């Protein structure tokens, strides 16, 4: 992968090219035009008189369009630019490219412009793993279109390439013979359009999948403008925060994704470029982060996840009745059941979080209609917790994959292989009951009870849920509490023993409310203590644990999304200053990334590196990192819906100064929140209880 990739996208359609706008992908190289998890163009190389071009500049206009300024010739030799070329590319149905050739000479000139085109139709999963294709390729020239097709049994995917200006077509591309007058110019419009499946044999009906994939695009520039207009306005003394806020809003717009069946509604996909699809966990958590700013994302997330809720037992897909999906894909490997993503259900947290989001959404919007509409699914999700997730038989949610080759080993947000470890660094067996899952289950039961009473008019169910929640909380505080360390173990192992490392998961427990009041102070002290808090944020795993590594994916790095929920949790228990400190640290880190927080950054002490060290990752922007500044803003302002009103109770770092969030949408219409930074975050807060 090269450093200077240019990416544009709309939903799950995206183009990754080099700085010339060219695509020369090998099977394992992640460039090309992708749509619905399939590469629809792997070769797209522009030459003028047989020469490649050199980039003068790249203009990233919007997330969905870019402009390349080029001159013929490459290498170190200075090019005598009598000609220049502009490629203006935007994602549409596939992409559209306006190709302009300019003659800067006062003499006429003849040039040959050629575009080489080809496609390997790789499944996104294959791009990562280099799997051999099992189907057949074909190429067809018809009229003014070059059609590339891949077929395997009934599976077919095609790419249709056309030009608005006449050209000579061959199986490998398009050739234009141009005659440009003095200072003349020439222009053509090129369209590269992906096609899913083919029309049925009678020819008059087209599979829904095909036309759903080709939904008309709205005016994207206007759409983005409207999106930004509808978001609350941020005013503050600290300029970088404004940059971060705007970056977050634009990136969140870019990450919107409309699954087939959602019509024009969209939900947050997980991340660009490899995760532009629906993920239960990521879509839910990002919708939660964004609730004070946009509520349609949550509504669509809830509806679409409900539509695909598990209904049967399927070991290949880790599906159970009531379970909320983990990940959904549309590519060849999924279609042939070589991968389980149609959808795959291997997530132990998405199901309780689904209920949490439904309740939080109602608290912000008052939309009881959706709560009524999703009653069946919410009840099924709550039932899943008790009937299908208790793999250890002890009343806790636990996970263990049911398909060894394709299932996910860790079905919680820390999903890498070594993320769950004992203090001495060894790994527990399966099933594993991680602690934050119990917090989510507790919260889901209480929130489910509220909805049962308020909307479903079932007080008996509400009481049962509340009884279960109280019992869960009591047992949890007994079984997960590491006595001598005064924190909660990250998990219980298969024998019910504590997996006793100190982790950021403790912050999620505060957010869920499962922590006994008497234990909260010790938990907050750990979160803000030197072993977990780096100065920028809370580490995933504490310094001193066997597997601690400041650049280990889930064993020492700092995740902005994680921290946003930790800050929310600290506030829930009254630790306002600590929450303000976490918020300030993460938002100050954002400044080093021009407002776009990475998925994770290094856990080195802030005093040592002075700047946050980015964890190398292929995924940026990532949805829940994009959502982190939003939730941190809401947390600092202490935004809390209470009945028909929005409570504002700010605790803001002095370094941020004046902070105003105007036109916050909700059941109250629109309201403003004002704050002045009074919390001194220069010296670390140390788990002092709220005042």
């Amino acid at each position, binding site marked *: 992968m090269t450093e200077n990739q240019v990416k544009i996208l709309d939903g799950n359609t995206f183009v990754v090219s080099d700085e010339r706008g060219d695509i020369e992908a090998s099977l394992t190289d992640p460039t090309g035009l992708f749509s619905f998890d399939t590469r629809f163009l792997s070769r797209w190389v522009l030459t003028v008189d047989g020469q490649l071009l050199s980039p003068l500049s790249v203009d990233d206009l919007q997330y969905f369009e870019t402009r390349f300024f080029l001159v013929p010739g490459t290498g170190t030799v200075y090019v005598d630019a009598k000609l220049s070329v502009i490629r203006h590319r935007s994602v549409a149905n596939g992409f559209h490219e306006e190709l302009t050739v300019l003659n800067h000479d006062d003499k006429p000139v003849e040039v040959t412009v050629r575009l080489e085109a080809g496609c390997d139709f790789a499944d996104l999963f294959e791009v990562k793993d280099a799997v051999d294709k099992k189907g057949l390729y074909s190429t067809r020239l018809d009229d003014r279109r070059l059609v590339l097709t891949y077929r395997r049994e009934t599976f077919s995917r095609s790419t249709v390439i056309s030009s608005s200006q006449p050209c000579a077509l061959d199986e490998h591309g398009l050739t234009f013979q141009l005659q440009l007058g003095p200072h003349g110019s020439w222009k053509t419009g090129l369209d590269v359009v992906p096609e899913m499946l083919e029309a049925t044999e009678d020819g008059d009906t087209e*599979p829904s999948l095909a036309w759903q994939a080709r939904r008309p695009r709205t005016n994207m520039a206007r759409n983005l403008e409207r999106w930004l207009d509808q978001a609350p306005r941020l005013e503050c003394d600290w300029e970088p925060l404004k940059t971060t806020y705007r970056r977050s809003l634009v990136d969140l717009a870019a990450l919107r994704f409309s699954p087939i069946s959602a019509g024009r509604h969209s939900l947050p996909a997980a991340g660009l470029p490899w995760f532009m699809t629906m993920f239960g966990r990521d879509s839910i958590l990002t919708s939660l982060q964004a609730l004070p700013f946009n509520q349609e994302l949550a509504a669509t997330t809830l509806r679409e996840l409900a539509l695909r809720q598990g209904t049967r*037992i399927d070991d290949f897909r880790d599906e159970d009745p009531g379970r909320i999906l983990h990940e959904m894909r549309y590519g060849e490997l999924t279609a042939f059941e070589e991968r389980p993503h149609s959808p795959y259900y291997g997530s132990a947290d998405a199901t309780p979080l689904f209920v949490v989001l439904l309740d939080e959404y109602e608290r912000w919007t008052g939309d009881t209609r959706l709560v009524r509409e999703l009653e069946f699914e919410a009840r099924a999700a709550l039932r899943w917790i008790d009937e299908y997730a208790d793999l250890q038989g002890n009343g806790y949610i636990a996970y263990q994959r049911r398909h060894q080759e394709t299932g996910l080993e860790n079905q919680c947000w820390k999903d890498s292989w070594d993320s769950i470890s004992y203090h001495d660094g060894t790994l527990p067996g399966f099933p594993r009951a991680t602690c934050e899952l119990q917090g989510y289950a507790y919260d889901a039961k209480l929130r489910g009870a509220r909805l049962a009473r308020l909307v479903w008019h079932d007080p008996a169910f509400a009481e049962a849920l509340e009884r279960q929640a109280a019992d869960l909380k009591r047992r949890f505080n007994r079984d997960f509490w590491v006595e001598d360390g005064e924190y909660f173990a990250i998990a219980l192992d298969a024998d019910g023993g504590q997996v006793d490392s100190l982790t950021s998961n403790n912050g999620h427990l505060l957010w869920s409310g499962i922590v006994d009041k008497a234990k909260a102070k010790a938990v907050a002290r750990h979160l803000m203590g030197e072993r977990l808090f780096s100065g920028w944020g809370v580490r995933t795993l504490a310094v001193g644990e066997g597997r601690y590594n400041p650049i280990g994916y889930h064993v020492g790095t700092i995740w902005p999304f994680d921290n946003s929920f930790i800050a929310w949790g600290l506030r829930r228990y009254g630790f306002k200053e600590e929450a303000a400190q976490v918020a300030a640290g993460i938002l100050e880190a954002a400044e080093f990334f021009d407002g776009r927080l990475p998925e994770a950054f290094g856990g080195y002490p802030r005093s040592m590196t002075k700047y946050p060290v980015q964890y190398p990752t292929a995924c940026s922007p990532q949805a829940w990192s994009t959502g982190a500044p939003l939730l941190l803003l809401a947390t600092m302002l202490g935004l809390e819906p209470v009945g028909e009103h929005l409570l504002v109770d700010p605790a803001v770092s002095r370094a941020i100064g004046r902070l105003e969030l105007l036109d916050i949408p909700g059941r109250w219409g629109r309201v403003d929140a004002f704050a002045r930074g009074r919390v001194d975050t220069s010296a670390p807060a140390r788990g002092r209880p709220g005042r």
Partner: protein
Amino acid sequence: MSDDVVEFFEELGRRGHEPLLAKVTGRVRFELVDGGGTTDRWLVAVDKGDTVVSHQGGPAACTIQAERALFERLCRGEENAMAAVLRGALVCTGDVELLFAIQRIFPGPPRERPAMPGAEGSR
């Protein structure tokens, strides 16, 4: 005529009300194509979960077409409907939301091996 398919539809008809389809109102036509080119049609009319099945054609908001052999496997839980749609082996035309809803009623795969600890949810 395959017993699995007939049994599936007749059983669905006998249920009268299917909670998994409680939000659904609409008609889905299933077209099962034989090797010989003949088509066997079933019409499932759903009204907020109340389900009436008839062994005939008729207008429908959503049509689901497949080879009979594939459909037999679907009725036995040996085939995943959504994967088959992506593959083009199960072709849906019309209202795709009806497809998402109706695929819920197909059974899960038969479980051959003894359940692993992680599969105890089946109890």
